[in-house]
């Protein structure tokens, strides 16, 4: 049974209040025109370049979006200096041509330790209510970026007590960063060298990732095939129920935006992938939000990711253990996944914590193909080739990099 979203009254975030006041003031000064008071919901110091029907994402009051922060964050995102062995940047596990996922089940960090979970795509992360696969406490990108940088379990970038000063010095001596930091934090004296430098760095990285927006797929433009149209109907049918968790304009029920001024509960779902002990257990350390909450019913509950660009983000699910879209669909058709042998054997279809909407369904082969066609129509080629999101650093020979090229239609979409 789907839990009812709890609505609690909540004050407008401070930034929105301030912007709202500015909006009202500027309205007073203009000549008389009929204006809709949207309470400043579209006011931002950043040009989001989004169609006006799309609600803007939330911006934290202490880190409003600006173009300068975005550009600084972009440089940091692609900078391998931000790692213990000068070999890992954010881009190591987030490739633009895969909608910022990385094409493998689970990535490996700077010291060779493999991450227990799959690297997710970063399109539209600004609209997520919580970050990462299963953490109800993680609500801002500013908090999230610290984890891959300094986490020790697993070690990702491996920034620690022993190397953080050397890494910071390496960043501080790069000539480009002088101007980039100064432009991004004009209100500070020497933002690259003062004691706020790490916080500035996190805020810039968060701003870049926040600016990765993707709303220009063929589906958005209404240019999809008949097969995809049939797949759309299937996706939204009561037989398949995909839309319940992969809901709305961002295809995730974990979506929030600036139009939502009341409390939005963070949602996580168990989709019956494991049942290692017959009582619903998922293998450690991937137990979903249970790891944070200790509530037994939260075992195996993960965030429903956005399906935008999903054809590019294989393999799937929290540990990358589902190879293709077809496999994903077949798991849902079966009402979960049965593993017949090995250390993780168990029948996920009878996982007692499985979401109530996953009850299995009948689907014919042509329908599977239509559904895949629909999911493939969510691929936004402008997103994966947008030069704004690409590596700004010159290549090894000192030459500017060419604009990213279209990697072509993924095999599972052919």
């Amino acid at each position, binding site marked *: 049974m789907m839990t009812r979203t709890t609505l*609690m009254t*909540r*004050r407008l975030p401070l930034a929105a209040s301030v912007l709202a006041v500015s909006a009202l003031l500027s309205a007073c000064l203009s000549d008389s025109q009929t204006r809709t008071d949207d309470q400043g919901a579209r006011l931002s110091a950043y040009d989001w370049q989004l169609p006006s029907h799309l609600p803007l994402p939330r911006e934290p009051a202490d880190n409003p979006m600006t173009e300068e922060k975005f550009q600084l964050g972009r440089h940091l995102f692609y900078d391998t200096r931000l790692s213990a062995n000068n070999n890992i940047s954010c881009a190591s596990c987030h490739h633009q041509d895969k909608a910022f996922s990385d094409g493998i089940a689970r990535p490996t960090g700077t010291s060779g330790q493999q991450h227990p979970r799959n690297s997710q795509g970063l399109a539209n992360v600004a609209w997520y209510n*919580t970050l*990462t696969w299963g*953490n*109800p*406490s*993680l*609500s*801002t990108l*500013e*908090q999230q970026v*610290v*984890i891959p*940088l*300094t*986490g*020790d*379990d697993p070690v990702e970038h491996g*920034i*620690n*007590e*022993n190397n*953080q000063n050397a890494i910071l010095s390496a960043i501080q001596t790069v000539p480009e960063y002088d101007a980039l930091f100064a432009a991004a934090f004009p209100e500070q004296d020497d933002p690259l060298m003062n004691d*706020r430098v*790490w*916080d500035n760095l*996190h805020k810039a990285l968060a701003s870049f990732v926040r600016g990765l927006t993707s709303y220009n797929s063929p589906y958005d433009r209404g240019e999809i095939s008949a097969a995809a149209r049939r797949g759309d109907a299937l996706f939204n049918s009561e037989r398949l129920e995909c839309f319940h968790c992969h809901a709305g304009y961002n295809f995730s029920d974990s979506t929030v935006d600036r139009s939502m001024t009341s*409390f939005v509960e*963070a949602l996580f779902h168990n989709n019956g992938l494991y049942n290692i002990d017959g009582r619903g257990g998922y293998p*450690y*350390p991937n137990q979903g939000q249970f*790891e*944070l*909450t*200790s*509530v037994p019913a939260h075992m195996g509950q993960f965030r429903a990711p956005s399906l935008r660009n999903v054809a590019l983000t294989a393999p799937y699910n929290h540990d990358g253990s589902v190879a293709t879209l077809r496999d994903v669909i077949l798991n849902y058709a079966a009402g979960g996944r049965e593993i017949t042998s090995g250390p993780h054997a168990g029948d996920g279809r009878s996982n007692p914590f499985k979401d109530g909407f996953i009850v299995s369904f009948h689907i014919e082969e042509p329908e599977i193909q239509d559904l895949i066609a629909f999911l493939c129509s969510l691929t936004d080629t402008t997103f994966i080739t947008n030069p704004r999101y690409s590596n700004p650093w010159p290549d090894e020979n000192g030459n500017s990099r060419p604009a990213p090229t279209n990697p072509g239609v993924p095999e599972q979409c052919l």
Partner: protein
Amino acid sequence: MNKNFCCLAKGGLALLVSSFMLTGCNSDSSTSTGSRTTQAIELPFALSVATAGYPDQVPGCGLVMQGLGTQNSRVTLADARFFVHDLKLITDKGEALPITLDAAAGQNKDAALLDFRDYNDCANVTDTSLATRNPNRKTSVLGQVALGEQDQISHIQFTLGIPFGRNHQDQATAVEPLRNPGLATGMAWSWQIGYKFTGLDVLPAEGVTRWNIHLGSTGCTITATDLAQGTEQSCVSYNRPVYTLALPAGQLHDQIAIELDYVALTSTSDLTQDLGGAAGCMSGGADPECTAIFEQLGLPAPGSEWDGSKTKTAVATQGVFSVIARP
């Protein structure tokens, strides 16, 4: 007692004011309650790894410590840090005298980060002549306490960890020693947010390669946004124990230290193995290694649900912390 000194002394001004009201600082000193003056206090902590078979062994990076755990394991040190806060001297009349923390290295008004590592990169030290000293080594807490001649101190009290309100905030801009990256690098709970209250980690020579003791709050769903909004959220298990330790008879508060006995802490644990969950005990409710550790610390069973109105709990029996004569 000089009443003017009492009222004008810097540091712990709020404490001073409350003392003023409690003890009548402006009254003459012939009253039976006497008067208190604020004075500096240094409270040393000690980390013991002495065993019956190896009574002289001391913790240090690169040193092999022997006879630990149920298998008499040999281990080397990887991390040896823990936070304390809310320190108090308790009089024999049961009055709690708060120690306000100085703004000093490794501590702020909210908490102190004790660090017993003597060298940097502790886990990898093999030859100490090649190692660099740990500049953040800190074994004492510095503060101010309002004390009077009439006060007989019978107990000392402290809470392990950092206060609830500081455990869920932005770490990059936190005041040291809570800043990550900063002094709190390595004391942050990876992807769970918040801080480890303890980082007591060893590298066993046999069996598993690492055995960690990371105490921290679990079952917390509070987000940074919740905190900013003042939304009331809580944790299932705060794991924030309050220790009240009796001073041995005749010992004065400035003659004692507080000792953490790592041998006792791990006395009922097998340091060669890990049967489930994280390496060692990281406070997970389902982690089998945590049962013994939590029992030694005097905490309720790991993962057990606490009263949401109390973010810390007084410990009745425990085997880890004790008062010793100042070395």
